[in-house]
C-alpha cells in the first residue's frame, strides 16, 4: 500500500533477486493436481444434481427403482474393498516415508488388487442388473443411477492403470522428484475416490434403497 514512499536510496533498494530459485516443485505440482481433483469433484457434484432431479418416482417411469434392485450388503463389500485398497495405498505411502521401496511396492500392489476386486464386484452388479433388464436405457432414473455409479467406476479404472504405471516407475527409477510427486498426486486421486464413494454409496445406493 505504501508503495510510493518519498525517498528511495538506489543503492539500498533490492531490484533483482539472483538467488531466487522459485518454489518447491512437489508442492506446486500437487496443488495443480489438487485443483484438477476439485474440478473432478465438480463433475460429481453436477452428476449428483442430475441424479437428484431424476430420482423422483415418475423418473423411473413405472419401472424398477433402486429400492428394488440395490442390495446394501453386496455393495457394502465394494465399500470395504475400496476402503481397504485406500488403506493399502496409505501403508505404501508410510513405507515411502521411510524410503522403503519394497514396502511401497507391496502397498501399491495391495491397492491394485483390492481395486480390481472393487471393479469386478461393480461389473458383476451391472451385468446382473442388465440381465434383469435394468440398463441405462430403461428410464431417466436408471440412466442417472448407472451413469453416476459408472463414472465413479471409470475413475477407479484409470486409477488402476496409473497404479500399474507407478509400480513400474518406482521399480525402475526409485524415488525421484518425479516419481514421488506422482505418488503423492496419485494418493490424492485414490483417496478422493474413497471420499466420493462415501457419497455415491450413501446417497445413491443406500438412500435409493430406503426410498
Amino acid at each position, binding site marked *: 500500500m505504501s508503495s510510493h514512499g518519498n525517498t528511495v536510496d538506489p543503492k539500498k533498494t533490492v531490484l533483482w533477486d539472483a538467488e531466487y530459485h522459485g518454489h*518447491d516443485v512437489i*508442492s506446486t505440482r*500437487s*496443488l495443480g493436481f*489438487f*485443483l484438477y481433483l*476439485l474440478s473432478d*469433484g*465438480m463433475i460429481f*457434484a*453436477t452428476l*449428483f*444434481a*442430475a441424479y*437428484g*432431479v431424476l*430420482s*423422483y*418416482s*415418475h423418473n423411473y417411469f413405472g419401472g424398477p427403482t433402486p429400492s428394488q434392485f440395490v442390495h*446394501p*450388503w453386496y*455393495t*457394502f463389500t465394494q*465399500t*470395504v474393498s475400496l*476402503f*481397504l485398497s*485406500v*488403506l493399502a495405498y*496409505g*501403508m505404501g*505411502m*508410510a513405507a515411502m*516415508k521411510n524410503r522403503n521401496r519394497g514396502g511401497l511396492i507391496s502397498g501399491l500392489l495391495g491397492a491394485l488388487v483390492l481395486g480390481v476386486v472393487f471393479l469386478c464386484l461393480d461389473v458383476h452388479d451391472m451385468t446382473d442388473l442388465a440381465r434383469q433388464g435394468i440398463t441405462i436405457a430403461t428410464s431417466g432414473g436408471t440412466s442417472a443411477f448407472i451413469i453416476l455409479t459408472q463414472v465413479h467406476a471409470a475413475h477407479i479404472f484409470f486409477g488402476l492403470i496409473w497404479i500399474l504405471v507407478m509400480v513400474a516407475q518406482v521399480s525402475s527409477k526409485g524415488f525421484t522428484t518425479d516419481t514421488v510427486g506422482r505418488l503423492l498426486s496419485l494418493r*490424492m486421486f485414490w*483417496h*478422493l475416490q*474413497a*471420499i466420493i464413494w*462415501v*457419497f455415491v*454409496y*450413501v*446417497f445413491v445406493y*443406500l*438412500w435409493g*434403497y*430406503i*426410498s
Partner: protein
Amino acid sequence: MSSVRGYLSGFLISGLLMLAATYMAATHAFPPFGLLMVITVCAAIATIAQTYFLLHIDTAEHNIWNTVSLVLFIPLFVLTIGLTWWMFSQLYLHTMPAMAGMH
C-alpha cells in the same frame, strides 16, 4: 500425519460408519426420513474423517493452498446441487402437479 496410525484411523472411522449406515438401511431401522438424516450424518462424519486423515487437508503451510481451494469449492458444490434440486422441485410442483412430492 501420513503415518500408519492416521491411515488406520481414517479407515476404521469411515468403515465403521458405513457399516452402521448399511445395517440401519438394510434393516429399515427408522422411518425413511429419519434414516436419511442418520445416514447423512454418517456420510458427513466419514467424509470429514477421510478428508483429514487421508487427504491431509489441514492448515499446515505446505498444504494451505489445497485447504483454501477446498474451502472455496465446497460452497459451489452446495450451490450447484442445492439450487438445482430446489429449482426442479419447484418446476415439478408447477408443471407436473400429479407427480410432485412423490420423491
